[in-house]
């Protein structure tokens, strides 16, 4: 049994490599950061669908949309006792740009750089944060970005106190916290656990759970045994079959939460047959979407074929393709491949990737396509993917922030298809050279009329679904098993919206 004031979560946490909000970009890392830092804008746990001011109390955009002024909430303090001021917020953003770690692109795409960020992000007084952007981005996108992990506000004084060689506290903040969120970091032991302690000065009030322990339990079956025994309160990684196995247990409640992650197969156009759009479409017809979702993916995936997940603004929920070998064969014959062809599919070696790949292999065979599966560790897979050396590759993609641009930027934009481009969006990785569609994407991000913009994204999604080199199949849904006495464990579609502070038991 777990202590009454402690929330114990079992999860595979081996993805954490840092807990610095300027660097954290792994799911578990972001989740922990979310609970330790307040952000400029945010989705409150009480309504995770609505973007609201966080550390900021209000905001106002200039007419040209290039400058946004935030008013900082009054009376807030960091866990250290220091007051939260606009200077902290400005410092936090500047710090991200200056450190220039992985997630920095979220805000550097606004036109900020090491050299100009001190001018673009300013705190004219203790309550006012002013940001200016140079790029042509719609303000709603900018506000979304201010709710991302890099917009976490750090305690400038504390961080500066731990500065070493002008590293802006980088070395220290990896494994320490300096925020105004609901929790502070007690300990992070790699491959073992993360322990959080409630922050009494949190603006949302003292959380009921004084301590949150996230235990590293890599084996889902072990998680299941633990939750059945009541040794943990929440199991995060149960598979569909395991959830089915505990269905009759009255002590356990399973919540299903759609996620923003998409599972898709990338078809590299360097592989000759895929250059024909009819082949790409045929491939779409050779996946048994419903079969999988109703069997081994039951509860853990839902069918979704466009590049922006459903449940979010501007998503396109109609699915074009069903499993139809006859149609696929016809298309393949038209394209000149009546007998199909042999192709390699790189896939993750663990579930669900391994099983999805095997199902695809089996159904594609019905269209005459002989698939050889090459299983690999996730990191190996990505290395290969980024070098465009695959033929087919099964992988997942999660949006970086809650605006369709994040995915459009990757799925529907490829400004430079040469072998060493400035960035490697998914379209590039699949050698999909699309000057037209790239323009459409660029237009959409600039559009300031929300309705028009929504339509543009829907069109883009349709276009990619019809022609693109992506067999987008599923949208992830998480099944979280909780002990029946656990209430209000708030979990949204991404790691940015997992909150522990309202939980009681």
């Amino acid at each position, binding site marked *: 049994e777990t202590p009454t004031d402690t929330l114990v979560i079992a999860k595979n946490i081996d993805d954490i490599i840092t807990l610095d909000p300027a660097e954290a970009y792994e799911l578990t890392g972001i989740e922990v950061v979310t609970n330790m830092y307040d952000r400029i804008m945010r989705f409150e746990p009480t309504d995770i669908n609505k973007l609201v001011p966080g550390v900021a109390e209000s905001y106002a955009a200039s007419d040209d949309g290039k400058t946004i002024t935030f008013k900082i909430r009054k009376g807030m303090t960091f866990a250290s006792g220091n007051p939260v001021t606009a200077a902290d917020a400005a410092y936090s953003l500047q710090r991200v740009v200056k450190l220039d770690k992985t997630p920095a692109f979220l805000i550097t795409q606004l036109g900020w750089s090491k050299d100009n960020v001190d001018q673009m992000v300013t705190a004219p007084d203790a309550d006012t944060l002013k940001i200016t952007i140079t790029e042509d981005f719609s303000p709603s996108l900018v506000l979304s970005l201010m709710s991302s992990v890099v917009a976490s506000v750090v305690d400038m004084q504390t961080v500066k106190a731990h500065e070493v060689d002008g590293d802006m506290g980088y070395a220290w903040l990896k494994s320490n916290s300096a925020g105004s969120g609901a929790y502070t970091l007690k300990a992070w032991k790699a491959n073992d656990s993360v322990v959080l302690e409630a922050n009494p000065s949190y603006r949302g009030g003292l959380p009921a759970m004084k301590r949150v322990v996230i235990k590293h339990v890599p084996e889902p*079956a072990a998680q299941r045994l633990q939750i059945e025994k009541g040794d943990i309160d929440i199991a995060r990684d149960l598979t569909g*079959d395991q959830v089915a196995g505990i269905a009759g247990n009255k002590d356990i409640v399973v919540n299903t939460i759609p996620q923003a992650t998409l599972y898709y197969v990338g078809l590299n156009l360097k592989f000759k047959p895929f250059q024909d759009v009819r082949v790409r479409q045929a491939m779409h017809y050779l996946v048994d979407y419903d079969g999988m979702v109703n*069997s*081994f993916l039951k509860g853990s995936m839902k069918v979704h074929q466009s590049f922006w997940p459903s449940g979010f603004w501007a998503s396109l929920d109609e699915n074009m393709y069903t499993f139809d070998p006859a149609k696929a064969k016809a298309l393949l014959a038209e394209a000149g491949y009546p007998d199909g062809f042999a192709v390699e599919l790189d896939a993750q*070696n663990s579930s669900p990737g391994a*099983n999805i790949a095997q199902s695809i292999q*089996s159904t594609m065979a019905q269209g005459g396509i002989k698939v*050889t*599966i090459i299983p690999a560790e996730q990191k190996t897979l990505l290395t290969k993917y980024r070098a465009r050396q695959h033929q087919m590759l099964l992988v997942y993609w999660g949006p970086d922030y809650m605006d369709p641009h994040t995915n459009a930027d990757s799925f529907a934009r490829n400004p430079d298809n040469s072998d060493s481009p400035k960035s490697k969006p998914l379209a590039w990785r699949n050698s999909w050279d699309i000057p037209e569609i790239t323009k459409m994407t660029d237009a959409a991000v600039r559009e300031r009329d929300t309705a028009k913009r929504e339509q543009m994204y829907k069109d883009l999604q349709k276009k990619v679904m019809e022609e693109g080199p992506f067999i987008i199949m599923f949208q992830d849904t998480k099944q979280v098993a909780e002990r029946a006495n656990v209430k209000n464990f708030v979990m949204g579609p991404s790691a940015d919206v997992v909150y522990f502070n309202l939980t009681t038991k």
Partner: protein
Amino acid sequence: MTGSLRQWLASDQPASRRQAVLGNLARGAKAIITNPAALTGLLIVIALLIVALFAPLIAGRISPIAQDLAARLAPPSSAHWFGTDELGRDIYARTVHGARVTLTIVMLVAVFVAPIGLAVGTAAGYLGGWVDALLMRITDIFLAFPRLVLALAFAAALGPGIENAVIAISLTAWPPYARIARAETVTIARSDFIAAVVLQGAASARILFRHIVPLCLSSVIVRLTLDMAGIILTAAGLGFLGLGAQPPTAEWGAMVSSGRDVILDQWWVATIPGLAIFIVSLGFNLLGDGLRDVLDPKNA
């Protein structure tokens, strides 16, 4: 007819080399057959061979890779003797076909490990001096290496797949063999019968390959049969980490590992291939013990 053949084989006065060789084989075979444990082992190994050779016949018309998502995770029944796995594939057919893969792994490892171990060990033991020092230092390095890291690294470097898993396992498995072979060579090299060959003017290579290696071979073979279980399980371990056989190939280790998610509710998915591994390693172990008794000159 059989009676005279038996006599011909059992003759203690063979008239030709062929008769002598066959007679010795026959005596060895008899020694194994009359030892219940060794016989059990032999039968298991033979059964494995038969199952592997005739897998398609034995599995009937059921395909080991045909998926039936509707009938997934079905318990053992008359339709699916051993039940079905998470993709609705027939576990009986997969277990039967898996024998092939398992046998391939085991044989390939044997083909790699024994020669490497023997070559390194006997050369070091016989030549001595700096050759010995160098070879044994290399052996030590490989021995002191975290085995799984080495195997994983090689498997990862070479890419997944049975062949590469085999290479990876072999590369980590040879050092103990080299050690055994060296230790044995050192004693053999000191023996009078080797001195006798030296005195006859034989060259080092001849002494190594014709006189020393055959003597080390038997203990290496015995050790190898005893290691079979370990080899299958290491392959399974690599499979568990995604570096073994490629899907949808039925491989026992991979089958066990893919069944572990459902082990608490659908025990058969992981347990049946696990039992197969157990039985086969049992077979090899028993046979190995029997072989050791037969090959040991003291028991002849």
